[in-house]
């Protein structure tokens, strides 16, 4: 069971997920401290490790739009979060697959903070309120990267095959 800990609206940009003024911090081991840095309450709770890994951010359309900064994916992954969105912006989705941040495309998802979700391969079930919301599979090109364990592992394998 995965608990919803945050609800984001449509068009949440990478400036919200990881504000530009922290871009000098690049290493995935260091980026989690600035996750949603301008939302003091949420960032504070994340820093205090108030949430279990595998907790869920629910988002609307076009989550992760804007800058290609990879910190936006690594900062969420660092907290072990899952993002379930009605839709993702292209570069953010690619960065997430490349780094192994779990992203789920669920165009009708409806859930509130505190709800418990059961996630299968094909649907998200809102256990608290009822309702099954179908998942759109990731593009095969992205799934192949995830199956390889991320883009670094995938590239390493390709390099060794030469």
């Amino acid at each position, binding site marked *: 069971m995965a608990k919803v800990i945050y609800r984001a609206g449509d*068009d949440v*940009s990478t*400036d*919200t997920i990881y*504000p*530009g*003024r922290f*871009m*000098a*911090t*690049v*290493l995935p081991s260091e980026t989690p401290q600035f996750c949603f840095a*301008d939302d003091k309450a949420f960032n504070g709770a994340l820093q205090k490790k108030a949430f279990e890994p595998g907790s869920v951010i629910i988002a609307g*359309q*076009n989550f992760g*739009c*804007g*800058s*290609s*900064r*990879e910190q936006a*994916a690594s900062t969420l992954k660092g907290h072990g979060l899952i993002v379930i969105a009605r*839709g993702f*912006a*292209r*570069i953010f989705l*690619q*960065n997430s697959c*490349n*780094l192994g941040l779990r992203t789920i495309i669920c165009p009708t998802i409806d859930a509130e903070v505190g709800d418990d979700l059961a996630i299968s391969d094909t649907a998200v079930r809102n256990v608290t309120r009822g309702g099954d919301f179908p998942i759109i599979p990731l*593009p*095969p*090109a*992205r799934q*192949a*990267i995830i199956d390889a364990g*991320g*883009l*670094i592992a*995938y*590239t*390493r394998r*390709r*390099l*060794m095959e030469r």
Partner: protein
Amino acid sequence: MGMTVAQKILARACGLPSVAVGDVVEPAVDLAMSHENTALVINQFSEVFEGTGLAPTVWDPNRIAVIFDHRVPAESAKTATNQKKVREFVGRHRITKFHDVRGDSGGICHQVLAEEGYDRPGHVIVGADSHTTSHGALGALAFGVGATELASVWALGRAVNIQVPDTIKVVARGRFSESVTPKDLILHVIGLLTAEGANFKVIEFHGDAVTRMPMSGRLVLCNMSVEAGATSGIVPADAETVRYLREEAGVTDPLDLVQPDPDADYARIVEVDVSTLAPQIACPHTVDNVKGIAAVAGTKVHQIVIGSCTNGRLDDLEVASARLKGRKVAQGVRMLVFPASWKIYKEAMRLGFLATLIEAGAVVMNPGCGCCLGIHQGALGDGETALSTTNRNFKGRMGNPTADVYLCSPAVAAASAITGVITDPRQKD
């Protein structure tokens, strides 16, 4: 079925006679660009080679461009140290297209790639920056990637697992009326398509308004295509592309002016008559929240910004300088000017534009991304409002989540600098 420009470029880069939308392909990359985030690219690149027994080697040091622009000169010890690491890496790997922090070359990466002649029509260009879409202005297929994806390109020389995208055709016809510019056209198009309307798609620009448009305007269209979510924006190469590359960028090698097939299949066709457009404003806090200027005219502003990879070119500075000649920036308004490159800076200095702007009260900064992304050089105070020729107005974008950012053309920015409120440039002052 014929192919779009994106399909043709991908087919060539894959050595295939054709590709279809949805195919997963691995195009050879002609140019891989990054800026300060090269520090992260280097980290990920080194990890790729871990445990392989192979020495970390880039596939082609002549096809990698590294340009410092996001935080120049360094705003912190951390950035300075990152830049130092990148400088050492670039030297060790003999990367030739490197532009350091110095006044005799360089500037914003997207301007530098164009004016140094690194861009070519028909090429596949990837950049660890979302505004890499800019280079479609020269007829290339150019798209933004994350740092790890760029590290993968450095290792393999190919972009792996690329899905051939659909294309939206935008046809812009007619002549712009006075003080209406390519910036107003692209803001209008983003408003029509919405912030995700072109997500996973390419925008191809056509029509006589585009054919007549100089390279500076085409760069604006393609630069901001990503604000509709587009993978790439492309203006099919033509006589203006050749003129720019030969006369301004000094390119002498043969050019492949890739054209779409007449029967190419488009996901959607959007037609715009530019002669009916008024100056457009993107209002807080999304770029697709676009209104005609009448809806927001009179809004008080605290900071005016002219610059960035979108609108920091010579013609933009010329418009601003012509408007501000003999006039003053309103009291209580800070006007910041960021030329897009040192080449532009020096030319604007020679032509007197910078002196005029400074005399009017503007602060002319060194070329770079400046305050566009809120790192340094011009943060906003609590509750303040900026009117800017840059490309994003997201909450927090200029360093303060309680501030508002409106986006506009240089003509609107300059007219508003004098009055201190959002002002229609067609109105005489």
